[in-house]
């Protein structure tokens, strides 16, 4: 029973995240089409959550927004997970000698939090989905490579790695077959927590105007729009922030569950 309880508690956040990022497939109507006549329409059959200041369907905009905000983060995280772990294992020094210069270089790069890199890149290139994805992956991947290297080197010094070597296992086999399953939970956990930070950062940027391009809808932008006529329809403000909160919460929950799962096993 215990194991299935854990699987369920991991499955729920994942299902929520998937439904939010792929919800746009089921959007009732075109999020961009404006119907000035039906401005601020109440919830109805055609507009399940009513319409916004320009009469656009709120629900479809929310679902479209999910694609942008979470889609980018999840895509970036996937790239970072695969590439970062591979590069991290590749660079892990198994001969025990730690190069001072390369360590300092790595520390230097990762001293800057990913959000700061995001700002520098977005600021200079202007914000668009490709920029956001490259900025996100580049800044996160550096940290993942450093994390994987430190973890792999730490595990390599442990007795079981020495024993595996004495049993004739090659470096590659020790790193992938023996060490990777041990350090993978921690990598995934770090990624989940970073995704949560990224969601807040992305929506923050588009909230202050650095949005993902003119025709791209995302929750931060919807939030800043809804803010202007806040007292007319407060729930227009409520929906986006609720979704930002839920998606960030799901990533945090995933991160914590994986850690607790790791701590147990």
């Amino acid at each position, binding site marked *: 029973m215990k194991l299935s309880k854990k699987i369920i508690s991991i499955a729920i956040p994942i299902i929520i995240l998937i439904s939010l990022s792929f919800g746009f497939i089921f959007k009732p109507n075109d999020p961009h089409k404006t119907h000035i006549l039906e401005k601020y329409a109440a919830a109805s059959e055609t507009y399940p959550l009513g319409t916004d200041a320009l009469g656009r369907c709120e629900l479809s905009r929310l679902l479209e927004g999910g694609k942008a905000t979470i889609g980018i983060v999840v895509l970036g995280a996937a790239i970072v997970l695969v590439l970062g772990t591979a590069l991290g294992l590749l660079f892990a020094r198994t001969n025990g000698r730690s190069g001072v210069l390369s360590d300092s270089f790595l520390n230097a790069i990762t001293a800057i939090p990913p959000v700061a890199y995001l700002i520098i890149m977005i600021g200079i290139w202007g914000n668009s989905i490709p920029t956001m994805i490259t900025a996100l992956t580049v800044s996160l991947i550096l940290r993942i490579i450093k994390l994987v290297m430190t973890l792999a080197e730490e595990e390599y010094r442990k*007795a079981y790695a020495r*024993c595996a070597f*004495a*049993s004739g*296992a090659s470096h590659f086999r020790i790193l992938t077959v023996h060490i990777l399953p*041990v350090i993978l939970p921690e990598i995934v956990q770090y990624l989940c927590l970073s995704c949560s930070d990224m969601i807040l950062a992305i929506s923050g940027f588009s909230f202050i105007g650095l949005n993902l391009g003119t025709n791209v809808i995302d929750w931060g932008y919807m939030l800043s729009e809804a803010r202007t006529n806040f007292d007319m329809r407060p729930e227009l403000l409520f929906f986006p922030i609720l979704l930002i909160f839920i998606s960030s919460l799901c990533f945090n929950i995933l991160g914590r569950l994986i850690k607790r799962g790791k701590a147990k096993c």
Partner: protein
Amino acid sequence: METITVKDVSRTYYDTNGDLFKALDNVSLEWKSGESIAVMGESGSGKSTLARLIIGLEKPSSGKILFDGEDTSKWRGNRWRRCRTEIQAAFQDEKGTLSPSRSVMQNAEEALCNLTSMKKSERYETILRLMVQMGLSNNLLSVPVRALSGGEQRRLGLLRALAVRPKFLVLDEVTAGLDLITTESILDLLAEYKNDHGCSYMLITHDLSAASRLCSRMFEIEHGQIIHESVQ
């Protein structure tokens, strides 16, 4: 392989605040096949370092280790792998010498997978036979490694090394930290295996009774130097 010679080997490390620390100070000894030797000394005397050098986990700072006259310090990974079937090791490290993410069966067959071309079924049989011999019940096979007790983990480490029928077996403190009864059972098992398969041990320990039971020659090591050799 017939003899392993250690010719005035020294090994130095840098300790935490960067000063040089001599773990081994030109040690020389002969280890012939068919003869078991014991290396005795208190913790920190350098005996585990000697074990790691002989198995090729580290390179000596100076001096040579010869396998039948061939200098091993120049060997690369796969050259070591070729001689692994003849020399194996079992370590003590209480944090566990078994791969935590793999099951008991996967750990047991690690040496067999890497060194022999045995098929899955063959490997399964050998492991089962050895499990019975070691007094480990075979329903432990699919259990994760951390569920095993200290004694069982030690025996599994031994089983993994013995599975490839090595001629030389380096045992680094395999009975340390175990209660008297489990120690006894492991020593009985090693004695019995020695008579059946003629395997020669290098027993590294600070436990006098274990050494006197299994080994004919004993070296006492202190601060990285062999200070006394005696024959039983």
